[in-house]
């Protein structure tokens, strides 16, 4: 279990804090076994393709907070993809009950060569003032980048001074890209900033409020929790500053994906005494039941949970049975971030598909809460058996293409932009579902089952695409073992 220290400006990256890895080939059970025995070793690749940046994951936890402004302290390129959050806010905000979506306030300090020489502290201090004058934001976040990190700008100090001067929280978030090859470290960085500077000690516990750490999925918890006499407090997209401040008053915290919320859940528990549900998220039937029962126990709603489970079973089991029948014998391959990827495997297995393998972006042996029950992969293996060809691979397309071109599953399930392209180019029906709530519970199985059937059925597009696809990969490469460039440089953090 990692110890949360809310007095430190910075949280350590996952490799160091949790011992997480980004290279492994074997089986799912093998990986879980290594993690339990403490013998997990990382591997590095001598050839690699673009990964992702912690700064954009940090921004994901910050930009969508109402009345927030975000300053990327770096060259203009380090915030180039943040415009996507403006789109998300406008498009998804309405589904999550925002009456009016306001423009996202996104800035770059635009560090230039002279700043590399003289340092960017002064520029940052002036930028914060200007952003405040322009936006009247109620909280300003400053996220760091490789440049500001390497030249050693004192971002903590500058933000603390600005906070005093302006009288609003000004939060430094440390997420330099080069610090971690696991870009989800950026989530932890964002949540650390939120936990140390925004969340307030509880004033009055609210017995019916449950924190839900999620992205921007549909608002399904209002109904589900409503049936249990609970209500969700979504963190942090679309939330108000008050919602975040009072999250310490919740009766429990749940997370939809431990890869996302691991750190915030632990920070709320260790820093503010809000217990976290430490079993992995409700995907697949056994895990759905475990999870809801745990929720019932923690919130004193055991009886209500049994009623809810019964109703859900009655409503959805018949359709699930039909879908299993139709999907029998189909094969699948999964590529996704860690915890949600494990959940996708559970969904596929529950629906009766054979999972031929998976390329999962990283692996956390355990999450910040240290609970074995929270390990979605071990639950998946326990409930449904081992997964062969389980590969920890952080978005290395060349490995994926090599594997897919040989294994040709009936469906590719992906959860990261860009990864379905190769499914399509190889003529494999491919599916990326953005809404992280889509597969939850009994209904989630129906949702996924129907979408998978639909994708397999309507394959004209990918079939045609495959006929015309251009392939930049060499013939030699496609004939090699997919892990040719994966060395076992144990414990070498070289990427």
């Amino acid at each position, binding site marked *: 279990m990692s110890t949360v220290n809310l007095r430190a400006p910075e949280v350590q990256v996952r490799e160091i804090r949790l011992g997480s890895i980004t290279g492994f080939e074997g089986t799912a059970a093998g990986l879980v076994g290594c993690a339990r025995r403490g013998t997990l070793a990382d591997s590095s690749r001598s050839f690699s393709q673009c990964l992702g940046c912690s700064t954009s994951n940090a921004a994901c936890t910050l930009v969508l907070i109402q009345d927030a402004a975000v300053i990327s302290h770096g060259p*203009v390129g380090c915030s180039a993809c943040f415009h996507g959050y403006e789109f998300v806010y406008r498009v998804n905000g309405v589904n999550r009950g925002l009456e009016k979506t306001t423009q996202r*306030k996104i800035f770059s300090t635009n560090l230039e060569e002279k700043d590399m020489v003289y340092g960017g502290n002064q520029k940052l201090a002036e930028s914060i003032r200007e952003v405040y004058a*322009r936006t009247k934001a109620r909280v300003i976040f400053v996220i760091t980048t490789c*440049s500001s990190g390497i030249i050693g700008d004192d971002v903590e100090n500058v933000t603390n001074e600005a906070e005093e001067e302006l009288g609003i929280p000004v939060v430094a978030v440390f997420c330099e*890209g*080069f610090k971690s090859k696991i870009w989800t470290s950026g989530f932890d960085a964002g949540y650390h900033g939120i936990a140390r500077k925004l969340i307030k000690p509880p004033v009055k516990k609210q017995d019916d409020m449950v924190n839900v750490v999620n992205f921007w999925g549909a608002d399904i918890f209002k109904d589900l929790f409503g049936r249990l006499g609970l209500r969700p407090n979504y963190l942090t997209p679309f939330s108000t500053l008050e919602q975040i401040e009072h999250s310490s008053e919740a009766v429990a915290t749940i997370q939809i994906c431990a890869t996302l919320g691991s750190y915030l859940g632990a920070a709320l528990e260790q820093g503010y005494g809000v217990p976290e549900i430490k079993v992995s998220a409700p995907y697949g039937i056994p895990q759905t039941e475990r999870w809801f029962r745990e929720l019932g126990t923690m919130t004193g709603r055991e009886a209500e949970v049994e009623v809810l489970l019964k109703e859900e079973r009655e409503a959805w089991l018949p359709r699930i049975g039909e879908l299993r029948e139709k999907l029998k014998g189909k094969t699948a391959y999964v590529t996704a971030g860690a915890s949600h990827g494990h959940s996708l495997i559970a969904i596929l297995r529950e629906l009766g598909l054979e999972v031929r393998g998976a390329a999962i972006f990283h692996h956390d042996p355990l999450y910040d809460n240290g609970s074995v029950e929270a390990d979605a992969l071990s639950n998946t293996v326990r409930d449904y058996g081992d997964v062969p060809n389980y590969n920890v691979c952080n978005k290395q397309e060349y490995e994926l293409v090599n594997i897919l071109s040989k294994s040709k599953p009936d469906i590719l399930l992906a959860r990261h932009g860009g990864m379905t392209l190769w499914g399509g180019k190889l003529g494999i029906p491919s599916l990326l579902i953005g809404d992280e709530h889509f597969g939850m519970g009994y209904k989630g199985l129906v949702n996924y089952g129907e979408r998978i059937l639909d994708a397999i059925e309507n394959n004209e597009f990918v079939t045609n695409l495959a006929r015309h696809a251009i392939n930049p990969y060499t013939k030699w490469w496609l004939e090699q073992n997919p892990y040719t460039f994966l060395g076992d440089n144990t414990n070498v953090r070289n990427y």
Partner: protein
Amino acid sequence: MSGIIEQERFTCAIGAMQTVVAIRKAVPILHSGPGCGTMVSGFFEHSTGYAGGSTAPCTNASEKEVVFGGEAKLKTVIEGTYKVIDSDLQVVLSGCTSEIVGDDISQVVAEFQAEGKPIVHVETAGFKSNNYVSHSNVVNAIVDQYVEVYAEDGTTKIDNLVNVFASIPYQDQFWKGNLRELKRILEGIGLRVNILFGPESGGVAEWRTMPNARFNILVSPWFGLDIVRHLEGKYGQPFLQFPYIPIGGNETSRFLRAVAAFAGLDPKPVEDFIGGEEAGFYEEIQSLATFLLEFRYGLPNHLHMILDSSYVLGISKFLLNEVGIVPKEQFIVDGVPEAFQQAIRAELAASSAKREIPVSFDPDAGKAQEAIRAITHPGRGLLIGSGWDKQLAEEKGFDFLSASNPSPYRLVLTTGYLGYQGGLRLIEDIYFRVLGTYS
């Protein structure tokens, strides 16, 4: 003035990896932090091309490379690239991490060059410049390290062969369509064209004929000037700069006549071509006139743009004179260096003898939005900008056309706004949006 940028509409130097992606079968190799490539694809979207996006090799600098240097890692990634990806040209682009640390990239790349590999390297640290500027550096690096070495004949000048530089691939989302139209009309007046980027180009084989061009054409107010100056020095090629994107009948004909005069072409066939093109163009404008003059339910009469300098000039001239939409305050956001601003002002002023078109230069587009919020003109307004501006247009009740990056509300494949064809397409796009507001 802190120099901050709100709502960025370009990216940093390493964004010029897209210049490489736009060359057929070329592969960009990033020697940078792990996130730079994804930031670039997140900015442009639909920009993978042959081997960009998730295909692009990257050294993904970590703490170790920052402390001990990343040269060894670069070497293995380049070696791997040759094994895994089939490419005609490899361009190593270095990012912030490697340049602050001081890796000797040229040394690593030189080893591969010595083995006869068509590999080039260029410094593109984000703090050095933006992608408008570094586009030129990438092209010049390819010229110096690839064209120079592999050109079959580096001296002979071929009559009527020109190298053409205009839209920056991907940064200008209409680059493919624009380059196609440019090539078409220049060939129409009798030139042979190296267009260099995109599907209309012959890939690296075409690049190798660059020294043989008799002269170069630059269509841009400022970006790309470093390329044509470099080529002038290197291959003795004079250049013609046309300082904005020519759109519609007047401006495209003006452009072609300028080129013809510069090249000393026989005016007869040039005028024949222009005459034919104009006939087709004005046939459409005439049918449009009835609609523009008679449509009683309201059409935009004035225009603001938050765009780069080339489009602000080109669209202002076009919409004012050929469509009757009057440009009001304009906001140029491509970070135009001060030395060029005066000329751009003068060019905009030259659009009309009757009116002044106020213009400001600042990449901090949040400021442009603030200014527009405070302005009111009588009549119905049109705003042309990027995805950032949709909400502003809604607030102001303007018609809105998204015509620059970032572009979450519009998909562009091969549409172009340059030339005769481009002018008509721009009209279609504007009135498609306008008429779409009537239910």
